């Protein structure tokens, strides 16, 4: 087995609520390790609405989703949390000595006394376009991300989409493929202008094709793709393809959490409102993923839940130790932890 990382608290999900929990746990001297399937912190704020204004964060009359994430990262920096991105937490089990063991889809193992599930609406997963029969090709010819570039060497590749993922992979894979076709429903792109220019340069040099349209059908057998049908303004066209990469953004799905033996209520984790603990002692749930009477899916509610949860988590990690209530304004002890003591 790979090396086991040991820490006090492992947090599943690095959305705003998971991030702020690091602060509250840190004030109580608990070290945190966060795992997220996204490639960066911020959860919904970073993935779904980075540029949109939020108006109900206390003391910030207006702040964008992305700026909120930047500020949270700055606020928790003194506690030096560790992060693992692009990782799905797949399993959670309790060991004989009461420690929890968390495993990711890359087979990394983390052990901690406390698990905090801050998984929001679930893990972000790629959207599957509604093309008849696409499931049969997934994992063989159809991929929603590029994990190994070799998978595409000397292949006839079709990429669908108009954002940065679609454009970046078009440019990065083009040199190694047999043929490259980018399909997008319109000639305008959401991607960085520089990437768009690079793509059009490649088209001009005859190194790839760009087709305006939408994929309407797939041909092939036994999971092996041979061609895709593209419907455009001027009718249908068949494009030879044995690899297809559709990039239609991400959607949230509960994912592996359903298999961790926790009580669930309509895909949410019921908790009490004193400790925000799940049906398994030592496993807490905060933010959008939890449920209790009166629950509001607001960032500010998730922050409050994190503060109360931290007190309970401390009692699990250090039973019997007295917890003294202190203010960050006046406690030199807390200020030392924050690195601001005079």
């Amino acid at each position, binding site marked *: 087995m790979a090396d086991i990382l040991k820490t006090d608290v492992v947090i599943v999900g690095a959305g705003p609520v998971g991030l702020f929990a690091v602060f509250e746990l840190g004030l109580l001297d608990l070290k945190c390790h966060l795992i997220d399937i996204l490639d960066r912190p911020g959860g919904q704020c970073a993935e*779904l*609405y980075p540029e949109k204004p939020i108006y109900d964060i206390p003391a910030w009359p207006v702040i964008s989703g992305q700026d909120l994430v930047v500020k949270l990262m700055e606020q928790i920096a003194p506690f030096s949390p560790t992060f693992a991105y692009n990782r799905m937490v797949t399993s959670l089990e309790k060991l004989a000595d009461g420690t929890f063991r968390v495993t990711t889809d890359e087979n990394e193992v983390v052990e901690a006394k406390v698990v905090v599930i801050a998984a929001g609406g679930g893990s972000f997963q790629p959207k599957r376009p509604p093309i008849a029969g696409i499931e049969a090709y997934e994992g063989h010819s159809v991929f929603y991300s590029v994990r190994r570039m070799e998978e595409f060497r000397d292949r006839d590749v079709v990429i669908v*989409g108009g954002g940065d993922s679609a454009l970046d992979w078009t440019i990065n894979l083009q040199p190694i493929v047999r043929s490259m076709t980018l399909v997008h429903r*319109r000639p305008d792109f*959401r991607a960085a202008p520089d990437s768009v220019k690079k793509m059009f340069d490649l088209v001009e040099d005859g190194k790839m094709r760009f087709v305006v349209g*939408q994929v309407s059908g797939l041909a092939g057998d036994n999971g092996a793709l041979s061609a895709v049908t593209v419907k455009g303004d001027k009718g249908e066209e068949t494009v030879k393809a044995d690899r297809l990469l559709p990039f239609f953004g991400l959607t949230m799905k509960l994912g592996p959490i359903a298999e961790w033996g926790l009580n669930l209520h309509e895909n949410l984790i019921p908790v009490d409102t004193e400790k925000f603990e799940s049906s398994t002692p030592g496993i807490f749930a905060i933010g959008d993923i939890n449920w209790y009477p009166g629950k509001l899916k607001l960032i500010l509610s998730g922050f409050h839940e994190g503060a109360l949860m931290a007190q309970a988590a401390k009692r699990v990690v250090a039973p019997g130790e007295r917890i003294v209530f202190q203010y960050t304004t006046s406690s030199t002890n807390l200020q030392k932890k924050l690195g601001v003591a005079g």
Partner: protein
Amino acid sequence: MTKITFIASSGARIDVDAVDGSTVMEAAIKNAVPGITAECGGACACATCHVYVDEAWTAKTGKPAATEEDMLDFAFDVRPNSRLSCQIKVKPDLDGLVVAIPERQA
């Protein structure tokens, strides 16, 4: 009040009264019109409120703004009359508006 007709992918017609100043998506949700999910609650951030505006009405509803066009990239089977219903404001001008709901939301 402004009348709006939703045509479900099954062909069923659903007539609703919408409050002026609200959005076509809000009228759908309030009246439990099937096929409009509106995951993001109208923030133009999910593309699950996709509709096809009846050709007779496209001039009155207007064209999508740039941010809406970007979001339509995430919808499926996008057509020239595609709109995100959370971005269409209800006004007396639109009395009698007809929109069709696609077979699947993003």
